[in-house]
């Protein structure tokens, strides 16, 4: 393998989750230039991990704004869920009334048809 080819593969050899291809490994072991390149990448990765410990200070007010936004969202959610419950209750009541009316209409219809049948038998 040539150094240029290895250089292209080095960024993918830095992950812990996969074995390094044997040709790459054996080239790096015998090539000072590629060893230096790998060392540069490793330093870069150490630097990147150090960035994790550096915090950026947000402008004042961000915390207050964030908490207020959550408060608003919670209120809206509470209102929506209350309205949904009421809607459900209204829908239930209307559904119940319709069912009762239907049942009453059915009883009346049966009653009338029986009366008609009795009249027909009598005549």
């Amino acid at each position, binding site marked *: 393998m040539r150094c240029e080819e290895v250089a*292209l593969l080095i*960024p*993918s050899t*830095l*992950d812990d*989750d996969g074995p390094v291809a044997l040709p790459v490994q054996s080239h790096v072991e015998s090539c000072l230039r590629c060893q230096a390149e790998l060392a*540069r*990448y490793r*330093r*870069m*990765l*150490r*630097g*990147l*991990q*150090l*960035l*994790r410990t*550096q*915090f*950026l*200070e*947000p*402008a004042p007010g*961000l*915390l207050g*704004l*964030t*908490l207020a*936004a*959550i*408060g608003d*969202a*919670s209120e809206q*959610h509470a209102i929506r869920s209350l309205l949904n419950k009421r809607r459900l209750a209204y829908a239930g009541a209307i559904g119940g009334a319709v069912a009762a009316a239907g049942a009453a209409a059915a009883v009346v219809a049966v009653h009338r048809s029986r009366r008609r049948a009795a009249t027909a038998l009598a005549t």
Partner: protein
Amino acid sequence: MQNNESGERDHLQGLVEAARDGSRPAFDELVRRTYVDTYTLAMRLTGNEEDARDVVQDAYLRAWKGLKRFRGDAQFTTWMYRITANASYTHVQKRKRLRTANLEDVEEPVDPRLEARPEAMAESVAGLAELTEAVDRLPQTLRQMVILKDVYGLPHEAIAEELGISVAAAKVRLHRGRKKLRDLLDELDERSAHAV
């Protein structure tokens, strides 16, 4: 030090459980304890303060709404990183649709004060400043990957899920990002050497 960390983790876990049971004060306390960390990640991902503020608010709103889905098998902070990554991705996509010019590709002027050699990069504050500068110059898609994987240590699978890409694509982007970052560091080093 380790005891402090595990104590803080336990405390956060207690707050998460209380918040999951509907306690707003517990969730507010979680926000207070983690928002600087979340803001730092949002700043690194978006590259500007205004967007980072929006992303932080959006991320905590999503967390509050989705807290019941948080299984607790990861740390709360790791879960917040994932939400922040996703919120940031959504925000940047929206912003891209609004802007006509792709500002990510515009070259920024180099800061001639950078003096650190790449060899001393990880060990010095100036080195970190140079590294931060180089990371900021990465194109958006590569920067997201490098930050989420190499700075915050999220697994490829989690990053791929939050950014809506395949794991293979995430790996390719990461390797491209590392290569580009390495080139940018060389470039910065050369320019600072010329400036001396």
